[in-house]
């Protein structure tokens, strides 16, 4: 019985092998195909290698090189870009807004539960007066983008210590609860979009629980937004020849900042709560006595939700900006508290054509007090500032060509900002970019209106190694 069954099994194997080895001709005698299925008669495919019965080998190890681990002193990309303003501006001498080349160097070293990351740019900026390095102000020929130590002290905890780029929240180029420092100067003159986010010098601890995740970021010394550069851009209160006199909170461990987020998922929906304790990110306050700008104290509390709706993605985000010293107190002025609300929706309109729409409201609290305390000469803001944004992006030529337009329009401020962009990949390494930053506005004291003399076009070439 046992022997018989083995013989039968062997026979079955042999027959199967014959069936596999003998290709299509065995089928020739099949019934004729019904009408309408003619294409199938054109013959069947030959068996691919591996189904033809020959011995199969193990999968070779010679696959993709491991390039997730960095190699020392690795050059990541070389980027060169030039930008020009399209109109004369009395306040800015130079017609160029951008003339620079940079080399990105990255180094990564990994241990069992730790990783060291260094990302830095060597920058040659033809428009910079002073090329001296200022690590803290992120200026000079050496720019440290990220220098951090990633640690995993526990299976449910990640930590990162050092300079790092951080982003959270649900907005598209609008930040309600993301108080991490921004570099709008780079953004408005046409640097690569990654430079909009200025790095933070901080300790980040992320803990992952069953019910929710928590991210806590502690910056021992305040990191402000980077200023608009009066050498390149003119803005409200920016005579080109004087520099802003500011009193920057810069005491270690007392002028510190805390960023907090708790988030979780409910099915396809992502919910998050946020908190921030620190300072206004720009010099929004003023000391009348010393005639210097201040960074008044600020706390922000908010939440967001994001998920699928009607074939697209919907997001809502709210933030309460609690200006701790709002109004005029003695000689010190601080901006009013605000409520900020963002609604967004994005979806695919057609093949490789996407549309994203956002509505953004900034509502001033205690508007009467604000009007009473407002400093003479400062912009007279409306109680509600409404901004609508649209992002339209289209991919063409096997996704090598990307056309996009991002538009900010504020009906209440009667101003706006357009970012048309063309990005084309010449091959696997080389790409070119052409773009513009178009500002318009009725008044010169609104957010985009003040920049209306700065409309510029730029072009870039980048080689990725």
């Amino acid at each position: 019985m046992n022997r018989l069954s083995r013989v039968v099994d062997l026979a079955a194997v042999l027959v199967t092998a014959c069936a596999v080895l003998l290709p299509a001709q065995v089928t020739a005698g099949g019934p004729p195909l019904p009408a309408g299925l003619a294409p199938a008669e054109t013959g069947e495919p030959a068996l691919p290698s591996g189904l033809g019965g020959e011995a199969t080998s193990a999968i070779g190890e010679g696959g993709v090189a491991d390039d997730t681990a960095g190699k020392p002193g690795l050059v990541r990309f070389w980027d060169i870009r030039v930008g020009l303003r399209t109109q004369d501006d009395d306040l800015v001498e130079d017609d160029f807004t951008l003339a620079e080349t940079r080399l990105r160097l990255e180094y990564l070293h990994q241990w069992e539960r730790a990783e060291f990351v260094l990302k830095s740019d060597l920058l040659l900026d033809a428009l910079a007066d002073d090329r001296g390095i200022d690590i803290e102000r992120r200026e000079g020929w050496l720019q440290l983008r990220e220098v951090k130590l990633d640690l995993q002290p526990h299976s449910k905890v990640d930590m990162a210590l050092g300079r790092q780029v951080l982003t959270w929240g649900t907005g598209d180029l609008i930040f309600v609860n993301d108080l991490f420092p921004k570099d709008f100067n780079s953004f408005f003159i046409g640097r690569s979009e990654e430079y909009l986010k200025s790095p933070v010098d901080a300790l980040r601890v992320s803990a992952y629980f069953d019910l929710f995740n928590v991210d806590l970021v502690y910056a021992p010394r305040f990191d402000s937004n980077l200023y608009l550069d009066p050498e390149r851009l003119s803005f409200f209160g920016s005579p080109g020849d004087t520099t802003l006199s500011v009193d920057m909170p810069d005491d270690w461990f007392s002028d510190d900042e805390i960023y907090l987020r708790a988030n979780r998922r409910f099915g396809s929906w992502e919910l998050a709560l946020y908190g921030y304790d620190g300072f206004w990110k720009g010099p929004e306050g003023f000391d009348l006595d010393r005639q210097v700008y201040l960074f008044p104290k600020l706390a922000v509390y908010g939440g967001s939700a994001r998920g699928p709706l009607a074939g697209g993605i919907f997001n809502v985000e709210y933030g309460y900006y609690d200006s701790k010293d709002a109004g005029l107190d003695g000689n010190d002025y601080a901006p009013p508290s605000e409520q900020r609300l963002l609604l967004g929706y994005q979806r695919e309109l057609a093949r490789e054509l996407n549309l994203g729409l956002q509505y953004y409201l900034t509502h001033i609290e205690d508007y009467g007090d604000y009007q009473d305390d407002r400093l003479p000469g400062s912009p007279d803001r409306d109680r509600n500032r409404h901004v609508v944004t649209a992002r339209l992006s289209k991919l063409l030529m096997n996704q090598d060509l990307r056309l996009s337009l991002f538009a900010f329009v504020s009906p209440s401020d009667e101003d706006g900002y357009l970012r048309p962009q063309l990005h084309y990949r010449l091959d696997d390494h080389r790409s070119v970019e052409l773009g513009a930053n178009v500002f318009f506005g009725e008044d010169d004291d609104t957010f985009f209106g003040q920049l209306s003399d700065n409309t510029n076009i730029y072009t870039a070439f980048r080689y990725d190694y």
Partner: protein
Amino acid sequence: MSGVVGKRMFGILAITANLMTAGTAVAQGVPPVEDIVERTNCVAYYAGRDGRAQVSMTITDHQGRTRSRRMTILRRDATAGEEEPSACRNQKYYVYFHRPTDVRGTVFTVWKHSGKDDDRWLYLPALDLVNRIAAGDRRTSFVGSHFFYEDISGRNIAEDEHELVEASANYFVLKGRPADPDSVEFKHYVIWIHRGTFVPVKVEFFDAQDRMYRVYQATKVETVQGLPTVVESKMEDLVRGGNTTLKFSRVQYDLDIGDEIFDERFLRNPPRDLLR
């Protein structure tokens, strides 16, 4: 016990069938179409409980210019009981890009749900930005290649009506028609499924004019951990010209890839031991 008997019975049947003429043999032992479709779907997209592969993609356009992409794909199938009506339905994908170098470190995750839109996220490391991507048309190009999203992650089998066209010695030949013709660009397709392994070997897509415009072909199959695995394949555009080839290496199944890999944590902190 009955399984063993069944196998032997099948063996005897096969012998008998082969001794008779081949023409009548093919009619024997053909499972119902739904079973063929179900098994093919499982073989093509759900091998093992989870899997990892490094993928090297070469896109050749109609002018002969080439572009390459390299990525590591991690996959985890939902198991029964885990929001899962039956096997081979819901699963999660994690795609880490190595090349082209300007997108190195970009991660794309997909939570595939049967019967509703996928959830998709895209992580951009330069900005530390976790973007939510609208589900969109699943029959658009995956990263600029001639493969569609749906070719990579699988098409919901309930969206097509299948009929058996032929059962040859090597293949089950099936014809698929979309239940909702307006939802797709094809009028029908013909698929050759290898009888022994249920590996889909070739798919021809036909448009409204019954013109073949797009062809998929598996060109190399290897057995990995006992599972038949397509390690080289090709998608051709017969109308515009051009094709994309895929080569899979370092394929491994049942690595116990945890569900958490597909969450935001591992978008920001890629699981390097799995990507190596």
